[in-house]
């Protein structure tokens, strides 16, 4: 049952994601790609859970730790670089 609900959420989110794109002016395509790339860094949440549940398992902790580093690079870098691009879009 829970799986069906998860699937339900996934399908709705997929459609929402598709609907959000469409009327975007081309000059915003790069920032948009970069901004949505930052959102895919949400996987850091999974990394935190992995480390949190690692218990005394060294290997698990190390794998989770690497995932946190990778995910944070994606999140922090992604948002900052997007903001840097968008800062430049201003009328004279």
């Amino acid at each position, binding site marked *: 049952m*829970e799986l069906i609900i*998860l699937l339900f*959420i*996934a399908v709705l*989110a*997929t459609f*929402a*994601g*598709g609907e*959000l*794109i469409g*009327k975007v*002016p*081309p*000059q*915003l*395509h*790069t*920032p*948009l*790609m*970069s*901004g*949505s*790339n*930052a*959102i*895919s*860094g949400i*996987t850091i*949440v*999974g*990394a*935190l*859970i992995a*480390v*949190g549940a*690692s*218990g005394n*398992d060294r290997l698990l*902790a190390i794998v*989770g730790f690497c995932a*946190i*580093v*990778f*995910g*944070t*690079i*994606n999140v*922090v*870098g*992604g*948002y*900052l*670089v*997007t903001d*840097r*691009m968008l*800062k430049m*879009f201003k009328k004279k």
Partner: protein
Amino acid sequence: MKENLILIAYIISAILFIIGIKRLGKVDTARQGNFLSAVGMLIAIIATLFMMDAIPLEWVITGIAIGAIIGAVSATKVAMTAMPEMVAIFNGFGGGASALVASAEFLKIHGGSAANYDTTTLITIMLSVIIGSLTFTGSFIAWGKLQGKISGQPITYPGQNMVNGLILVGMVIFGYLAVTNMSGFVAETTDINMLWFPIVIAIGLILGILSVLPIGGADMPVVISLLNSYSGIAAAMTGFVLHNHALIVSGCLVGASGLFLTNIMCKGMNRSLGNVLFSAFGKVDKSVVQKTTTGITVKEMSPDNAAFTMQAAESVIIVPGYGMAVAQAQHEVRKLSDELEKIGVDVKFAVHPVAGRMPGHMNVLLAEANISYDKLFDMDEINDDFAGTDVALIIGANDVVNPAARHDESSPIYGMPILNVDQAKTTFVLKRSMNPGFAGIGNELFGYDNNYMVFGDAKATVSQFVETLKQ
């Protein structure tokens, strides 16, 4: 109770992501949208930490600190011209993170400490690991191609499709083996043979390399956008593994929006996604190049004379391309635009959807140089204006202005919509030399009667224009 609070936090962050993406699509609200989405991310992270019973602080804080420093330094230090590569790298790390999280979950199943180890969990672990690791290596290959560290030419070899096909088959077989035990069925058990799992990871990594290598450098924007979509899908799969709503929602949002964006880009080139991925587009066909480059005689003009022509013009349309990005000429171009406007010349910019190495790449560079975005026009908006324009100034663009796309069926870019620069009274092409463009195709525009080549480094040439106009 705690569980519900966390779900509510996840719902809030999902709402912020959706509003964020929506606002990112409008110039006036884009920056705010990105900020809202970042707040959503922060809420999701804090809620997750709140949920955990025992936080291994040393791991979490060190990991976040290292990642934040690397991310922040590279995001602020990178040159605007190298933006596409940077996004590719960040995206690669995102995919890699998903693969690692799924791997950790697999290790847990092996160790007997996992909460879920049903068939769905095992399948989604495999998908997350494979998609995540191919996003990781694929993104780095895309980065290498854009940086010029790997040849921008499509790399092909005989039997390539067969090799890739075999890898796909291998992926299915080893993926199946990795999640089954001796009884031959997908395991609902912790009794798992760890031998096959590293092989699955290796296949994912190899697949990323082999699937991006044969794609030409000019198609990298499409590839990066597609890989962005993949990293979203990998995150969503990881969400299914962990039964985590935040991961599923955000992953699906990114996966779907990324695919739509990829599709928009393919449309801009009038090609299908399949054609981009599998046709090794832009592979230099020696016979074709000889055919198109022989018989073209080009006329050259000095920067001074070109500047005088623009001075006498009523209207100039500037067509920027990747060459402008490479030469870092955007600031000089701004000065040129200012000088021309000072003497009453009407200046516009024509931006082809796939000019540069990413959709909107040119807009970002021109915006960096403080060129107001109401002077920038899309192909559809401006294509009818070329006929009434005195000068079309083409700075480092090639394939997007090649008239062969309209009529030469043998040309690899046949059918791609192009900017109608040849309809302007005069065209100037700023180019380093007569080498063909990134896609490796000769350009017949160069030989047209109303075209003049201005050879040299784009930045130096444009600043020469500015000097001449100031006198």
